[in-house]
């Protein structure tokens, strides 16, 4: 069984936010009204997180990192879920079961990375969006929590295809939308248990670090520090 993980190279990342957009389209993440967005209800599974600003104005260099779900190996969200609406699959992906979620938002309160988003209400989506809906991803009803699932629908599709073709899942068969879209290949994705995979090699880099690793959540999304 593979163990999926991701390495994001901050040296390469230009903060272009292509991953943010791709994620939003791929997973049918709801577009909220302007008022709601200003009230802190904007919904993103992948989000650009501004950590700090280096240098003095006007020569500033913002230090930002793309932040999706860390897919922790010891996830604090599944520990507290009262109804098993979020769980860890054998391949390490922390998945959500939307029809089971009662909307208590305990997982949101316990996620140290604050990655979970809640469907405060269901709003009419812009007409232009109709053509972009992904038929493989269920639209979440109001009142449930959602988050990045490493584009689990792509894994489903890839493994079905591999099964039909009577072969095993190859490393390049399945990558999440953010990895596919990144114009500078800053994101590597693959099997952390495979010693030869790109992601394992990247994770051995001396620049590798995980967000809030000290909490013992063992994130499977890790970063390569930006070094001039």
């Amino acid at each position: 069984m593979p163990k999926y993980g991701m390495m994001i190279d901050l040296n390469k990342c230009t903060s272009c936010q292509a991953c943010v957009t791709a994620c939003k389209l791929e997973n049918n993440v709801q577009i909220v009204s302007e008022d709601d967005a200003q009230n802190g209800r904007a919904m993103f599974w992948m989000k650009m997180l501004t950590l700090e600003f280096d240098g003095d104005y006007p020569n500033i260099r913002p230090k930002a990192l793309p932040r999706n779900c860390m897919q922790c190996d010891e996830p604090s969200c599944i520990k507290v879920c009262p109804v098993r609406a979020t769980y860890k699959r054998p391949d390490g992906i922390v998945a959500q079961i939307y029809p089971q979620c009662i909307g208590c938002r305990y997982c949101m309160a316990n996620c140290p990375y604050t990655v979970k988003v809640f469907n405060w209400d269901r709003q009419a989506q812009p007409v232009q969006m109709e053509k972009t809906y992904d038929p493989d991803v269920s639209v979440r009803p109001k009142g449930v929590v959602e988050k990045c699932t490493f584009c689990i629908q792509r894994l489903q599709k890839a493994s079905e295809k591999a099964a039909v073709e009577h072969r095993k899942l190859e490393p390049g068969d399945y990558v999440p939308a953010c990895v596919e879209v990144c114009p500078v290949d800053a994101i590597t994705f693959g099997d952390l248990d495979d010693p030869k995979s790109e992601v394992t090699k990247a994770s051995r880099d001396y620049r590798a670090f995980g967000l809030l690793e000290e909490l013992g959540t063992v994130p499977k999304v890790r970063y390569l520090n930006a070094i001039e």
Partner: protein
Amino acid sequence: MSYQDLHDEDEVLFRPIYQTSRTFYVVVIALAAVFLFGLGCYIHQLFYGLGATGMDEPVSWAFYIVDFVFFIGISHAGTLISAILRLSKAEWRRPITRMAEVITGIVLAIGGLHPIIDLGRPDRILHLFERGRLQSPLLWDLTSVTAYFTASTIYLYVPMIPDIALLRDRGGKLHNFYRILAWGYKGTPRQKHALERAINILMVMVIPIAVSVHTIIAWIFGMTLQPGWHSTIFGPYFVVGAIYSGIAALVIVMVTFRKIFHFEDYLKEIHFRYLGTLLLVVALLWTYFTFAEFLTTFYGHEPAEMRVFLYKFIGAYAPFFWAMVFCNFLLPIVILSNKKTKTIPGILVASIGVVIGMWLERLIIIIPTLANPRLPYPTGMYVPSITELGIAAAATSAFVLGFMGFSKLFPLISIWETKEGREHSIHEVSMRLRDYLPGQRDEAGVEASVKAEI
């Protein structure tokens, strides 16, 4: 002892049941209007979703959870205080226990509903029973709150049986209602013995349940990894806070009913002074816990913890924090440790301060932590919406309405216990006292008192 001759002496305790003033109806209508408004707010929220509240991305738990913790805290008034006073044979408890237990029953029903109001999908509430995970503190909470509600309702009901029997014997419109509830109680020695046994077992049982309830509510927060919540003292800290707000709520209720129903002869100044002393002790205990909690945070100076700490001390929540310090620490301690101000109005002011202060305490425990996530997200200020305020107002009016309804059905002060106090306890207490003191021992008397206690 037949029940017919009990009536006259304590007639004032029966009066609220049979006489209803006009003001009563006016107040009921006003409160019912508030309650219906809150109900309307909730129906709006049901259709519109939790978007109707002021909650947002980092502050994903707010008013409802604050009220939940607050109301469950108030519920400790009753059962715990009355059980401890009964257990320690405090004779002055007699006119107090009933009201304390009623507070528990009503407030627990209201508080217990708050997590359901807070759910995004209340239609899926049965998932908790179908596929509940016992590893989640929310399930512990569900278990302990329902256990506490069951235990405290029984604990309210059982000591009320002799009084219901009295009401049954008086006849009237609700005769059949009382007949069913009185469970055929006639005051025979065997029934009396069984009743006392039941009360003794219940009061011992109810104490650990009460302590566990608030400990587990604290653990909902304590078990998380979040700065400001992840603390080992949260369990006992919340229990102390709960008892604190419980005593204060009890004092407010007692003063109110003393005034409305003229219970001055039953609830004397001495009762309030004793409760005031109890309140002072718990105030100091609460202060000690608060001090310990904040000092360790400050001394450790962990950045994430410090952000929450400073948010409370000098940041956006500073007004609430310092108001809490005033209401929970300065005001009650100054009033209650001064003999001149430790009068009924003084104790009432302190109690109102404590109830407000304890609500603020729940607020400043829950929101600043959520508003300061570990990673640098932009965070706004949480402002409750009309829906949330409406539901909070409805919850408060439901509490008062519940109490008013109770006062029209059952006596607010235990009549048979008052009677028992008058008839037996004076003798019993003097015997007990004689047993404590050195010197002569009246063997026969002591034996009799021991027998009476068993």
